């Protein structure tokens, strides 16, 4: 498996937000400012990679040997929620500066379905551990890219002369659709 092509595929072509429509809530909710989007993107990268490692190991060493594959969804949700809580606690105690930068976003990530999508895709595609890590990195970087670019556009839109009925979420959804169209043009690149 070519790791670079896997990475580029998950970032650009098979993008988690624009192709699979996961993580729409943070896309609309946390992209009014570039700073918020940047923080959210970084936090998602960290959580997706960490939870992908843990859930892959859980599936490989516990669920599969005990023939409990059907528990994948429930156990992964619990693991992701616990991991996010643990990270928040760890940052509060040991790295307060990082907590101040990412603090508000961590509880939001628990309900971000892009994280669960990443962990479950690793299993459904039968990836090895290294492929899982590359896939997780690609998904989270793709999320970060879209969220940040979308935030820069939205900041400009706030100053633009948008018709009253389109202000806020309507124009945001139109922009999302246009971005999805733009990204679909990258199909066949890898």
């Amino acid at each position, binding site marked *: 498996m070519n790791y670079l092509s896997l990475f580029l595929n998950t970032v650009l072509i098979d993008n988690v937000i624009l192709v699979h429509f996961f993580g729409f809530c943070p896309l609309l909710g946390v992209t009014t400012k570039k700073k918020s989007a940047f923080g959210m993107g970084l936090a998602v990268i960290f959580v997706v990679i960490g939870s992908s490692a843990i859930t892959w190991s859980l599936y490989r060493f516990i669920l599969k040997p005990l023939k409990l594959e059907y528990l994948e969804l429930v156990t992964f949700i619990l693991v992701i929620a616990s991991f996010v809580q643990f990270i928040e606690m760890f940052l509060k105690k040991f790295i307060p500066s990082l907590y101040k930068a990412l603090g*508000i976003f961590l509880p939001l990530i628990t309900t971000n379905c892009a994280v669960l999508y990443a962990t479950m895709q690793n299993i459904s595609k039968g990836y090895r551990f290294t492929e899982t890590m590359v896939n997780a990195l690609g998904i989270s970087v793709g999320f970060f890219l879209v969220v940040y670019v979308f935030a820069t556009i939205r900041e400009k839109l706030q100053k633009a002369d948008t018709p009253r009925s389109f202000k806020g979420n309507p124009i945001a959804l139109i922009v999302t659709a246009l971005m999805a169209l733009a990204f679909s043009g990258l199909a066949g690149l890898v």
Partner: protein
Amino acid sequence: MNFVQILTALALVGGLAVLNGWIYVKNKKTPLPEGCEPFRESCSNCPAEEDCVLKKVERSVKQ
């Protein structure tokens, strides 16, 4: 599916749920860093300050 498998499944899910609850309680008890008050109550030095202030402004304009 046999009885042992069902028990194992319940133990695994129960164990993870207990772990989640325990970490949640520990997290709630962990004090916030200095200069970082709860986001909902006030807009302090935390990173969400701008969004918090923006939302307060939006709310006051609507009223």
